[in-house]
């Protein structure tokens, strides 16, 4: 990879950025997305502010109570012998915690704990904030949704973009001076960095607005959840860039782009759908944990696992390692497919065919 190699690759990337940024549709889509993100922050904040009644959940078996309101309270209570049915106990707790919640919201946790342990009649054993509150879970889910949407939106563009030279036949002119891998790398880097810039602006807007209006999805979340969302967005995006590029390498006509990229959408959809169930459950299934290691699903699964507090450090590290290695491998595969496919014309290639001629 000499300086010359990168120079030409850079020229290709530069063209991708310049040509795409020139198109009106790019700016229209950007503005629409920006408005959508702003609406996604502002509308829930407006709706949420008016809902003051607390939702209550009872975890089966124990008598812990999870209260959800503008701020959260988790009350753990030991069963009191002879105090009647769990339902009656719960009713008793509920009569108290309306005020408790207000107190808690206004006081620092230590002060809240002091007051509740001395001044409340019910035998409240302790008052603790949950390790991962609902705000964090919502942030985790929001990150998964964002990553899902971004990959689906930009991925297909990469597939179509990679097919551009082949479908317009300009590739023959380019190949007198460019290696196929240079062309592919330049295209993916160009399209990828442009999209990433757009995403950074969108996510930045999301957080800026979120903080400004005090959205619970942003404010209440632990920093780790936000960071995890950003990390797997970046990793997932890079991995899927190469995967969509490989899909694009297999096709000759842009009409085939959707078919070729369909297999890539399925794991994303799976991880995305399961995210809704995982994010509210206290016990994440082993299957969902497993998906956290698969590079195709990890980008949407891991932010949720982190958000619900179910991802130990080793799992995060392993997942990151797997996705990084997979990205490199996928980039190589894409380059190989592109190189083989580009030197012949005709119908859509089969992956096996390409790999056979590559070996």
């Amino acid at each position, binding site marked *: 990879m000499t300086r010359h190699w990168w120079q*030409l690759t850079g*020229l*290709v990337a530069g*063209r991708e950025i*310049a*040509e795409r940024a020139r*198109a009106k549709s790019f700016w229209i889509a950007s503005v629409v997305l920006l408005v959508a993100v702003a609406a996604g922050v502002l509308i829930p904040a407006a709706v949420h502010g008016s809902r003051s009644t607390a939702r209550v959940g009872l975890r089966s078996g124990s008598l812990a109570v999870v209260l959800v309101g503008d701020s959260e309270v988790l009350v753990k209570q030991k069963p009191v012998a002879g105090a009647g049915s769990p339902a009656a106990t719960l009713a008793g707790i509920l009569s108290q915690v309306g005020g408790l919640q207000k107190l808690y919201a206004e006081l620092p946790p230590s002060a809240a704990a002091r007051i509740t342990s001395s001044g409340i009649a019910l035998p409240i054993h302790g008052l603790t904030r949950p390790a991962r509150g609902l705000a964090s879970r919502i942030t985790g889910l929001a990150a998964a949704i964002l990553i899902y949407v971004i990959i689906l939106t930009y991925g297909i563009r990469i597939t179509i973009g990679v097919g*551009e030279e082949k479908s*317009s*036949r*300009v*590739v*023959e*002119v*380019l*190949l*007198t*001076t*460019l*290696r196929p891998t240079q062309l592919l790398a330049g295209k993916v880097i160009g399209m990828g960095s442009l999209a990433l810039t757009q995403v950074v602006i969108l996510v930045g807007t999301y957080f800026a607005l979120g903080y400004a209006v005090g959205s619970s999805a942003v404010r209440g979340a632990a920093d780790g959840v936000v960071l995890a969302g950003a990390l797997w967005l970046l990793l997932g995006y890079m991995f899927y860039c190469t995967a969509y590029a490989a899909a694009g390498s297999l096709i000759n006509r842009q009409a085939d782009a959707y078919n070729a990229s369909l297999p890539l959408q399925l794991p994303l959809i799976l991880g995305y759908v399961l995210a809704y169930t995982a994010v509210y459950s206290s016990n994440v299934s082993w299957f969902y944990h497993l998906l956290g290691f698969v590079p195709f699903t990890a980008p949407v699964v891991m932010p949720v696992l982190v958000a619900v507090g179910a991802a130990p450090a080793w799992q995060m590290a392993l997942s990151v390692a797997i996705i990084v290695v997979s990205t490199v491998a996928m980039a190589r595969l894409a380059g190989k497919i592109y190189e083989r496919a*580009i*030197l012949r014309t005709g119908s859509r290639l089969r992956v096996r065919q390409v790999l056979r001629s590559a070996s």
Partner: protein
Amino acid sequence: MGRGVLELIGLSRRFGEVIALDQLSFTVPPGQVFGFLGPNGAGKTTAMRAIVGVAAVDSGEVRWNGQLIDQAARSRIGYMPEERGLYPAMQVTEQLSYLARLHGLSAPRARAAAAAWSERLGIGDRGQAKIETLSLGNQQRVQLAAALVHDPELLVLDEPFSGLDPAGVDAMSEVLAERAAAGVTMLFSSHQLDLVEHLCESVAIIHRGALVAYGKVADLTASGPLRVFVRVAGDEAGRWALGLGDIAVVEKVTGGTAVLGLRNRADAQAVLDRARAAGPVEEFGFVRRKLSEVFRDAVGSPAPAMSAPGASA
């Protein structure tokens, strides 16, 4: 081999059962307008794609300046592919300077070259237009400009004349002649044999992937069966020639001019003597074959009407 010489050495390529190239070897000297001919499917495009490196060959090699052609050498090629292709939504000047930069020109030089070639090919006023909005003829001009914009040392042009109007053909011919005069090595394919004959100094003709004729156009057209044309005043039907017997065969008579096939050069004088005996000779000369005849003989297609022996008007 010396500077600027392009050598094809034993190129072979099979597509399944079809033999596209069969031990194809020939040399293209620099500074000549060099035509590459052959019927459809003869392997011209495959050979040209092999030269520029977008198609692999099963065996054989391409040498340029005496060395195996490599990626660095290929960036000095100007290539016009058979299937035209440029970025449809890109502006003409942008596109040309992008291609020039990919071939190593600096940004300012690339822009200048793009403007100069657009001007030269008569599309100077369309610099801001997207390629897809241009007429096919103008797209073709942009395609040629794309092949020339980096001042290549070797031009490989696949059917550069197809789809051009007469003005376009003139502009293209002029550019090719000028580039050849500047010392560029050039190989272009065409089916317009009259044009090739007029334009080219040398040609290679291939058939079923193998070379069947090669050389200077002047030499190729002067070769083959010896013929003379004679016109005797007052003998519109060329009756004088009927008595020539075994020294000449009348091939045809049009407008009083008889075309006679001879066995050897010496018989030409005998024919001339007979003609003068019959009356005043208004025309006399050797018939050069047309390149199209050379082509037909070389590729062995069904005999064209004009060479049917003994036919008379």
